[in-house]
């Protein structure tokens, strides 16, 4: 990969014709350093036509999208991870390098490159142009954030820059959509192979920087003045006293909103599911099919879809924090505290999100570049008390713990027990992190580097696209895995079907399975009915309530009192505590398992995590049952 020698042959510009037909989309890669606004541009170009997946075998996310040209042709855009260079050291750089050189069999080799750079920091960002131009692929150099450059008094001569780089240059503002038509023109037109005047030796960083500086000087680049508002806002957000207080306020506000604002919206979704179910029930003839649809599909899938508002709300907050630039400041403030556990500042927001739901939390660990820190964060996230545990805790505590005041009006015993369970999950998470970070996930001395982007207003389009993306992922899962599980559970509760009647639950397939595992869970103080609940809770925790409700032949929502009373027949006080501890520790969530597998690129980590958490749950429940009798 030596730069100059590669390009001596391509000094005469050659026009590259695309071999692809009109139907097969041509592949074009989008690449740029972190914080260059690459994703914003990608969103501009592709809109809703995006697909998110993981590159097989690695944890790097693969975004592809379809850009529709004005003449009707379509082009496949590959959004590569944000990198500072192409020397394959991190996983991100390896993927970017391999895709661009056509070494990944799962991704088509790009026929052209869109190189996105921050025009307000062109000197440093141009360093990435050297290895990209050296590839010899038709390249459009996109100087993004043109609005910032202009507003802060910077300028650049595009013609001279283009002559120096031997490639077309476009000055755009992806956020405002200014100049984006130039990108479409490039994609639609005949593309030239780059013919830069000179390229530095790519391995030599100081030489590359010198080259970038030289190119900038030739193009009469004047850097903009430092961002005034960012300095002013940092004086507040990074104030030695005010900063942490604001940080706490932000955290509490998010936490509080997810719990309070989400509740009515959840009720609304619940109402919608219930009434649509009733409507479907009213138009269908009674029978097996109706039972499958209502008891299996509607109740099963519906119990999961109620979490959609919470998940969207969480991602709205994360989106605002990230797009505005505050997330980097939050990570900076949290870094010291997280370092004590062996983690880093960037782990903080995912762990906070895990109090709502581990699935989006694990997805949001993508902001952590250090792979070991990221995996450690993924592994401890499910210990945080998620919203699916909440209804289970609520039910068991209400059934077994008298609601007497503990500290006057401030805290009742029930609330204290709830708080205790939150603390329990957190303590175990911290201890697990310590163990992991001092053993299998000990990271070397990789320095913690955190770029502080300028503050920017998040745009509605970008936030909307994020929410749309997450909603799609979530609903697709509800419509596939969870649907399948619900149908299977319904089947197990209705088999064997004799004389046109479903069996008694105790004699059903599910009941038989419950009684088979009873010896294993007996030491924890659970009987076979609780056993079926535990089994169905593997798919999602709150399912145990619906399952127990079905088993006791009651509606769990309408008749909480009845369910609470019924629980007393099957659980002693010790057993109730054991059940709470079991739920605090066990990884009963098929969505979390699936998302961990996706994010870590294999079965190794989810299997390890599931085993560890199950063993811990069993041991914890055993201890609780025998200590509190």
């Amino acid at each position, binding site marked *: 990969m030596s730069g100059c020698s590669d390009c001596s042959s391509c000094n005469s510009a050659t026009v590259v014709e695309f071999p692809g037909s009109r139907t097969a989309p041509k592949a074009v890669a989008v690449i740029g350093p972190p914080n260059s606004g690459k994703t914003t541009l990608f969103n501009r170009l592709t809109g809703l036509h995006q697909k998110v997946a993981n590159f097989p075998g690695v944890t790097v996310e693969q975004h592809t999208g379809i850009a529709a040209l004005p003449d009707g042709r379509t082009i496949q855009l590959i959004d590569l991870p944000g990198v500072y260079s192409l020397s394959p050291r991190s996983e991100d750089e390896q993927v970017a390098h391999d895709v661009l050189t056509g070494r990944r069999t799962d991704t088509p080799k790009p026929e052209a490159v869109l190189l996105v750079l921050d025009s307000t920091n062109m*000197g440093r960002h141009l*360093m990435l142009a050297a290895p990209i131009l050296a590839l010899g692929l038709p390249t459009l150099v996109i100087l993004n954030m043109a609005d910032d450059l202009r507003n802060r008094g910077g300028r650049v001569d595009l013609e001279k820059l283009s002559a120096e780089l031997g490639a077309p240059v476009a000055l755009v503002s992806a956020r405002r959509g200014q100049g984006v038509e130039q990108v479409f023109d490039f994609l639609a037109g005949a593309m030239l192979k780059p013919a830069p005047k000179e390229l530095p030796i790519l391995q030599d960083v100081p030489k590359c920087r010198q080259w970038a500086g030289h190119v900038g000087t030739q193009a009469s680049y004047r*850097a903009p003045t430092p961002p005034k508002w960012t300095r002013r806002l940092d004086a507040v957000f*990074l104030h030695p006293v005010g900063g*942490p207080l604001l940080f706490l306020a932000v955290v509490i506000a998010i936490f509080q909103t997810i719990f309070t604002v989400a509740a009515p919206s959840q009720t609304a979704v619940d109402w919608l599911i219930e009434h649509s179910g009733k409507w479907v029930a009213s138009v269908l003839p009674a029978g097996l099919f109706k039972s499958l649809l209502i008891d299996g599909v509607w109740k099963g899938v519906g119990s999961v879809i109620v979490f959609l508002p919470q998940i969207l709300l969480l991602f709205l907050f994360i989106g605002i924090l990230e797009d505005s630039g505050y997330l980097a400041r939050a990570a900076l*403030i949290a870094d010291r505290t997280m370092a004590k556990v062996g983690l880093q500042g960037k782990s903080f927001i995912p762990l906070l999100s895990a109090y709502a739901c581990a699935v989006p939390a694990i997805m949001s660990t993508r902001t952590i570049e250090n792979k070991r820190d990221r995996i450690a964060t993924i592994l401890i996230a499910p210990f945080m008390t998620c919203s699916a545990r909440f209804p289970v805790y609520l039910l068991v505590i209400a059934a077994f713990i008298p609601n007497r005041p503990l500290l006057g009006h401030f805290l009742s015993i029930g609330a204290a027990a709830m708080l205790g369970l939150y603390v329990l999950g957190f303590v175990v998470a911290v201890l697990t992190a310590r163990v992991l970070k001092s053993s299998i996930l000990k990271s070397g001395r990789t*320095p*913690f580097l*955190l770029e*502080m982007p300028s503050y920017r207003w998040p745009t509605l389009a970008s936030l909307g696209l994020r929410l749309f993306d997450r909603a799609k992922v979530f609903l697709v899962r509800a419509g596939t895995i969870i649907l399948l599980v619900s149908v299977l559970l319904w089947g197990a509760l209705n088999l064997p079907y004799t004389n046109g009647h479903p069996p008694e639950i105790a004699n059903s397939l599910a009941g038989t399975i419950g009684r088979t595992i009873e010896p294993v869970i007996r030491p924890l103080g659970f009987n076979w009915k609780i056993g079926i609940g535990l089994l169905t809770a593997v798919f999602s925790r709150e399912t145990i309530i619906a399952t127990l409700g079905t088993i006791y032949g009651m509606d769990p929502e309408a008749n909480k009192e009845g369910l609470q009373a019924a629980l007393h027949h099957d659980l002693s006080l010790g057993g109730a505590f054991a059940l709470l501890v079991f739920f605090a520790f066990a990884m009963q969530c098929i969505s979390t398992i699936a998302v961990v597998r996706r994010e870590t690129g294999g079965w190794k980590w989810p299997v390890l995590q599931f085993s560890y958490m199950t063993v811990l749950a069993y041991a914890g429940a055993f201890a609780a049952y025998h200590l509190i009798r």
Partner: protein
Amino acid sequence: MQLSVNCDLPETLPASLVDLRHGDAAILDGIDLPMEDARRLMELGFLPGTQITAGRSAPGGDPQVFQVDGSEIALRRETARRLTVHRKKTKVEAKPRV
């Protein structure tokens, strides 16, 4: 990472980035870290000879933000300690490099 630097000012003292207080500027001399890590820092603008200005920090002073080559990068003290600088006698306004 060694780079000989012309220390013609008698007031210049050998120091590291952790010795800079908010607003102080200094010139980077070298990075005492393994090659891979040093490269990563250099790609972010921490090149010998570059002027670095100390910015704000997290409470307790760790990690700290540094203004370098048109961007702001936060480093932990353990990393900042490995970046040797020589200080200028007077405060200098950060001049954007091109």
